[in-house]
């Protein structure tokens, strides 16, 4: 059909609805067009270059050739709380319920490199994740879990090198060689400065630690995903969909540049880079976001970094449903929100997924809530049909047009960040933080004006009883953890610890030294996380945040 004919039909349609639309300004004036047609999408002549086929450049339709017609995504539930022993029990229960990968949540002292007995840790031990002070805790955390079989994702950033070293050391004790280990460390420090807040060191030594990990793993832990470049937290902090992928891909560019500067070859590490997206409420926009992000990254890798291996050009992604979209009000409604977000992630072609639990706007989730969240994934996988066809929304005029729109907006931001001098400079200047905050504030204004409806919050409210049976972490967890730590310190060979820490300090001072082997040695002596990070703090200093409102 010719475009003229389509245009003529569209004009006729528009004229026919003009009066009706004028009667409903609230729905009529949404930012999106009312209707999309073949006029909004690329022609067949651009199909192969821009959309193509799954497993082929530019990977718009997915990174694997068969996607969920091979196997489903990894159902990976983020969990961890209290002590290593309790978290170990939750992991084993998740594996028994059919979870296919582990995802460790660490408490804040662990994420910021403090031991449980540090005064600054008071009140925080075991709260948002499990407390890990030394290899002894890590051994308990993975007790009776075969590290040769399971794949483990660890949400750890500033001290990622230390937790990875502990994981390698536990595997050694189980008789599993590092070359067999499968998993991911988040290891994405740039988004910590921009959005998540668990940084320790300034950007330069942080980037060194990250490239040290890339290099060490490419030789010793080849199946490990050395970084999960994360848009999730940027979105949680309030960004739009386009900002989420743009700022994250800009971070990815910065990591590649740092690694290349350190002497690595792009095709030697790029295949182990992975990404982390948010699955937010607007289902179709999210699907378009996933598709656009794969296309942008593929082009960045091919055109900017001249990668040659297809694997280097693939944006492989873990996804989590949007925690910030959960409501404390009528909290069972969150089950429905999570189901829709799951649908978006699956139609967007994610490689793994965590689904949030209904009660997370109130507390850490109960076992029952976690089970519902995991069942949500299983229902989408086995019952909904959404996973039966690869990239099922391709060819939708709307979704294709939105994929193009998000890609265009992402390039505009990436170009702007290039002009500022790259992601590190843009974060140091507070540019990215300000953009995110402005979007967050605009969102809040829209909710408060009623322009954006959140069911149960600013519309359809009702009186309700406070929910019962929420999970509580007892303050005694902190006391018990400190006792464990002190008992461990009394037993270890303190001379060996001192020696390993002195050796690590010397390595930190020599910029050409890869720190990973030194950290691994220290971990094996049961040097604590706080001691190891303390040495690095002495040499590297600490980051001072740029606060702008």
């Amino acid at each position, binding site marked *: 059909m010719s475009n003229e004919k389509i245009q003529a039909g569209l004009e006729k349609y528009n004229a026919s609805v003009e009066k009706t639309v004028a009667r409903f300004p609230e729905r009529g004036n949404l930012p999106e067009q009312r209707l999309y047609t073949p006029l909004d999408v690329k022609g067949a002549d651009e199909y192969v270059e821009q959309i193509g086929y799954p497993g082929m450049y530019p990977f718009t339709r997915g990174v694997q050739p068969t996607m969920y017609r091979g196997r489903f995504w990894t159902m990976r539930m983020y969990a961890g709380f209290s002590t290593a022993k309790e978290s170990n029990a939750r992991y084993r229960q998740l594996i028994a319920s059919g979870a296919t990968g582990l995802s460790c949540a660490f408490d*804040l*002292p662990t*994420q*910021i490199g*403090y031991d449980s007995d540090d005064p*600054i*840790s*008071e*009140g*925080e031990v075991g*709260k*948002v994740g499990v407390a890990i002070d030394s290899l002894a805790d890590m051994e308990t955390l993975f007790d009776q879990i075969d590290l040769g079989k399971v794949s483990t994702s660890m949400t750890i950033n500033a001290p990622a090198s230390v937790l990875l070293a502990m994981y390698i050391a536990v595997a050694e004790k189980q008789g599993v060689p590092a070359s067999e280990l499968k998993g991911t460390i988040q290891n994405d420090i740039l988004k*910590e400065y921009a959005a*998540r*807040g*668990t940084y320790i060191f300034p950007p330069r030594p942080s980037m060194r630690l990250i490239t040290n990990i890339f290099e060490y793993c490419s030789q010793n832990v080849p199946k490990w995903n050395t970084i999960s470049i994360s848009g999730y937290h940027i979105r*949680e*902090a*309030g960004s739009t969909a386009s900002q989420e992928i743009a700022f994250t891909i800009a971070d990815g560019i910065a990591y590649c540049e740092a690694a290349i500067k350190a002497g690595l070859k792009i095709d030697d590490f790029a295949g182990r880079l992975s990404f982390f997206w948010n699955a937010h409420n607007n289902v179709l926009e999210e699907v378009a976001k996933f598709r656009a992000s794969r296309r942008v990254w593929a082009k960045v890798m091919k055109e900017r970094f001249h990668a040659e291996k297809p694997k280097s050009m693939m944006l492989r992604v873990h996804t989590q449903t949007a925690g*910030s979209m959960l*409501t*404390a*009000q009528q909290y069972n409604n969150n089950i429905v929100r999570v189901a829709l977000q799951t649908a978006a992630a699956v139609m967007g072609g994610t490689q793994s997924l965590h689904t949030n639990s209904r009660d997370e*706007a*109130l*507390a*850490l989730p109960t076992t029952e809530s976690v089970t519902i969240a995991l069942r949500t994934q299983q229902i989408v996988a086995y019952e909904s049909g959404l996973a039966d066809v690869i990239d099922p929304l391709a060819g939708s005029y709307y979704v294709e047009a939105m994929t193009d729109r998000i890609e265009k907006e992402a390039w505009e931001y990436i170009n702007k960040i290039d002009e500022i001098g790259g992601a590190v400079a843009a974060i140091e200047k507070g540019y990215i933080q300000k953009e995110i*905050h402005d979007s*967050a*504030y605009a969102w*809040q204004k829209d909710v*408060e004006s009623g322009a954006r409806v*959140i069911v149960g*919050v*600013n519309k359809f409210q009702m009186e309700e009883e*406070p*929910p019962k049976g*929420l999970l*509580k*972490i007892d*303050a005694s967890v902190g006391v018990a953890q400190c006792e464990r730590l002190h008992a461990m310190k009394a037993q270890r060979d303190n001379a060996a610890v001192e020696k390993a820490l002195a050796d690590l300090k010397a390595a930190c001072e020599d910029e050409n030294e890869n720190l990973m082997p030194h950290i691994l040695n220290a971990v094996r002596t049961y040097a604590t996380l706080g001691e190891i990070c303390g040495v690095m703090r002495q040499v590297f200093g600490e980051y001072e*945040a740029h*606060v702008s*409102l």
Partner: protein
Amino acid sequence: MDKPIRVLVAKPGLDGHDRGAKVVAHALRDAGFEVIYTGLRQTPEQIAKAALQEDVNVIAMSILSGAHPHLFPKVVNLVRAQGQEDVLIIGGGVIPDSDIPALKEAGIAEVFTPGTDTSDIVKFINENVK
């Protein structure tokens, strides 16, 4: 004209989630208050010191990590101990309803949980500040 109300928006503890704190700080500023935001990872001692130095009328704290039962009362005690009896201290974040009575008992004037309209916080401050 009255002196504008001065508010210290603070993030006690190690929690890095500051979307809420920054949105509230921005909204309070738009409502005509003078707002000082501490940034992340403040100890109770640092918050109390800032409250004294900045001579604020209100301290608004946000915690999403679950450390509120420990950290909120600690700030109240330090602020009262340095003689700032009249400073209005409020809190917000991921805080279960069942924790709220104990926080109020400890001197937190009001607790604002997820879904709160920022205009309700403005109203509460205007009605309760001394």
